[in-house]
């Protein structure tokens, strides 16, 4: 009996010991870490990952690619008399439940249009003010005696835009069944001739996803 009590006491002493507690916690952390999926880099050239209900980089790439292809095939970028059009980026409205930086779409289009050799984009004019304020701010140096005035931008050098690119991303959520929902994304783009106000080119890319109601597309 005495031996048994002594045994319980010694077990309790061991179990309550700080070192054992630390070991127990460390083992739990190790087990939790072992269960977590390992981080992997996405192969952007051959991503076999499943689709997501929200918009991911593949959707933006697809929408941008379709828009640019359509724009190039339409002939709207062929300037009469040759040369390049100057393009201003107007407002791209995000009408979805997701927090999207519309530059994810617009930047891809801009890069490709610039690369095409048919268009050059101005950053001095934009729907929400100039994208790059420096072009205007640098002109304030005209009054400064500290700057060599021959190196300061002269008056009347900026080029006004010929075309404006505007657009909208729309989302529609449709309940298919008690467990299934359908999410549709519409990428609508318009290229307007600033001089006449006429739309030279318009296009819409649609991306549809169907999945669980439990997935929230944002």
């Amino acid at each position: 009996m005495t031996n048994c009590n002594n045994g319980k006491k010694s077990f309790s002493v061991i179990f309550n010991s700080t070192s054992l507690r630390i070991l127990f916690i460390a083992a739990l952390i190790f087990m939790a870490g072992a269960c977590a999926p390992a981080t992997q880099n996405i192969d952007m050239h051959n991503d076999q990952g499943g689709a997501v209900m929200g918009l991911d980089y593949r959707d933006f790439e697809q929408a941008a690619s379709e828009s640019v292809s359509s724009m190039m095939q339409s002939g709207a970028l062929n300037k009469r008399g040759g040369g390049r059009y100057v393009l201003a980026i107007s407002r791209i409205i995000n009408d979805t439940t997701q927090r999207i930086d519309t530059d994810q779409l617009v930047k891809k289009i801009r890069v490709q249009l610039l690369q095409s050799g048919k268009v050059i984009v101005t950053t001095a004019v934009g729907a929400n003010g100039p994208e790059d304020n420096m072009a205007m701010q640098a002109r304030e140096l005209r009054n400064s005696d500290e700057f060599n005035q021959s190196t300061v931008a002269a008056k009347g050098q900026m080029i006004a835009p010929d075309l404006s690119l505007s657009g909208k991303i729309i989302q529609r959520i449709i309940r298919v069944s008690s467990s299934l929902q359908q999410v549709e994304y519409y990428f609508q783009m318009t290229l307007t001739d600033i001089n006449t106000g006429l739309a030279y080119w318009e296009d819409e890319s649609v991306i549809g996803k169907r999945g669980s109601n439990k997935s929230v597309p944002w």
Partner: protein
Amino acid sequence: MIRFKAFSIITICIIMLLTGCTSMNPIDPRVTIIDDHFFSDLSITGVNVTPHYGDFMEVQVTGRNNASSYKKFEYKIEWLDQNEMLIPSVMSGWTGFPGFENSEFRFKAVAPTMSATDFRIIIRREN
């Protein structure tokens, strides 16, 4: 004699299996079908290229889905300049297109720049 026949059959089978993985298109060597299936459902019947002088080069590929069911395929196109150098582009990603059962399909691609003078296309079944 029997052993020789068996050896020949096995050799032919191995060659057929290997060539079944990737097939260079006889219509246009610039179009390649990547297919891990022995009997590919996909065949290319035509490649039309528009002149590129002063404008963007355009390519239209015509093919056929020989399967008795709808398949979804995808293609990837690489554009090359006159020095056969790759032209990087957002338009060079995998692009899906439909292949309806026992029907022809077509897809069209436009070059990202006017300097594109050549191309390579690979086609596969979408996973």
